[in-house]
């Protein structure tokens, strides 16, 4: 089953998802939520790729989405490692507590 929709509609959704993720990054202090927001942003990019792939009827969009998937996994793996360290060394998940480096 495959349908035909105006690309701009998909892009609206992708952009909205992307911007919501961005808003999350801008607003949240808890590092877990920051990471979730990042996932949302990447997912939005994936959606855009899928849309583009669907527009051209090519598999490249899907492949890029898969690469993004790998990227997301990799980032999350390392990021969660960092989160663990953060909670161990700082005793909190508040990113603002880790703001000794400044000036």
């Amino acid at each position: 089953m495959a349908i035909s929709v105006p690309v701009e509609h998909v892009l609206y959704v992708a952009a909205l998802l992307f911007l919501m993720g961005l808003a999350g990054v801008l607003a949240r202090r808890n590092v877990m939520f920051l990471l979730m927001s990042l996932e949302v942003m990447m997912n939005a990019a994936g959606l855009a790729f899928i849309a583009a792939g669907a527009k051209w009827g090519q598999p490249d969009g899907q492949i890029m989405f898969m690469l993004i998937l790998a990227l997301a996994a990799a980032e999350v793996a390392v990021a969660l490692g960092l989160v663990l360290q953060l909670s161990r060394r700082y005793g909190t998940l508040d990113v603002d507590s880790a703001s000794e480096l400044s000036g």
Partner: protein
Amino acid sequence: MLDLLWLVPALPLLGFLALFATEGKLPDKLVAVIGAGTVGIAALVALFAGREFLQSGEPSFSLSLWTWIAVADFQPSITLYLDALSLVMMGVITGVGFLIHLYATGYMWKDHQEPASYSRFFAYMNLFVFAMLMLVLGDNLLVLFLGWEGVGLCSYLLIGFYHRDAANGYAARKAFVVTRVGDTAFALGLFLLFRELGSLEIQQALAASSALTPCMATAICLLLLGGAVGKSAQVPLQTWLPDAMAGPTPVSALIHAATMVTAGVYLIARMQDLYLLSANAQHYVAVVGLATLLIASFTALTQRDIKRILAYSTMSQIGYMFMALGVGAWSAAIFHLMTHAFFKALLFLASGSVILALHHEQDIFKMGGLWKKLPVPFWSMAIGSGALVALPFVTSGFYSKDAILLTAYDTSGWLYWGGGVLAAGLTALYTTRMMVITFFGDAKTEPHEDSRINMWLPLAVLGVLSIVGGWFGIGVLDELLGGLGDFSHASPVAVVTMAVPLLGILLGVLVFSGRIDVAGFVESKAGDALRRFFDSGWAFDWLYERVFVKPFLWLARVNKGDVVDLIYTLTKSITRGLHHTGALTQTGRLRWYAANMAIGLIVVLLLAAGWL
């Protein structure tokens, strides 16, 4: 012998170098021999060279040494040029110079402020003689300028000879700076002259000068006059000379009476042809002379310092010379220059003896009754004063001054003559005042006379010259320079000219010996104001202090830190401010950083969409 003319300036230079290089380590006697000896030999060489020159009958003689600078069309060379004018000047400089050096070997003998000062004194004096000789012998205005500045430097060095006293240093600097103002005009004159005539060779330039427009000629003449008034202490640059008396008395005699201060006269006489092109310029010369003459004479009336009296009298006498130049009495000016050199040197040296005898007391009101105790200085002073006052027939000053005044009357009418005669009367008055107060009346300080031969011999020789110089002048100078003998002594004008000084003396004797009581006037309010006005040299110093010195000092004080630097300091502050502002943005907060990235993204997208 003429080919050895270069020895005349070279010998004093050699003396200078010897004294300079030995750093004052020579024994004083040797210093005296070198110091006075080199000038003496130079005088001898000058004498022989002069005789040979006169015998040769040529109008001029020049001796090229080397090309100084050769750039494009500017090719001044170091050439010595001898003609009647420079011969007279050379004679005066070496002759009178030698006598004063001789006198100074005695005068400075025990004057050891510091180990090398005796040697240093003669080094400077020798250098001065060298520079002065270059000034008068230079064939080129640039060489003349070399001498001109050189004598200025020596004048500075010698005025400030007793350099531990800051006042002397001030006087020295004042002399140098004020004359430098004139020199600036002089230098500009040279630039203009060179631009217009393409050469600074005096003879060439003069020969070519007829091509000048009158306006340009006037401009050049006035600029040169600017130099002359500076060096010769004429209005308006006269203020340095009285202060210059801070130097040792032989210096005053040599530099500030006999030679250097007459350089301006020499310069104008030398450039005579140029001045003939511009009646205006000539007129200004005369005006300067007359103004100085009167101002200085009035000022001299109220001075208490014997050397200052003589200094003002020097100014006024040079005023005569300027007036002479201005009214066309060229030869008379030189004649007066010569006789003035004799008698003013005599006066200074004699006053130096008095001062030395009174342990450096210079205030005439602290002297008195000295005529018996110091006969040599007294008689020298008397002869000198006579010449200064122009006692008829027996003094040289009479002949030269008469020549000036009568020529002035002949060529320019009664104004200059009248002024000159008035000043002559004043001269008589203040000279009498000086003599009466110094040598008569009650003794106020006990002198001890120190009359070594090297000190009284120059006095004697100068005394003789002050008397016979006039006849010599009439006899020889007239022949050399021409234009001295063509006035009649019988006219009423001549009689008045002659009589006024005598009246002045009479008046002076009456007033200052107390026969006529002027105390009432002097002590009145107006009288006191007038006295203070005269005493201050007509308030020129006061004026210059406010117009030039104070503003300059003010500027120096407020701008010590260099206002231009503010531009850079400001730039620095702004940059630092920007840095601090920027550093504030680096808060270390992750979300703030992300927000900035979002802002960046907005900027980039807006730019890319063409909305910015």
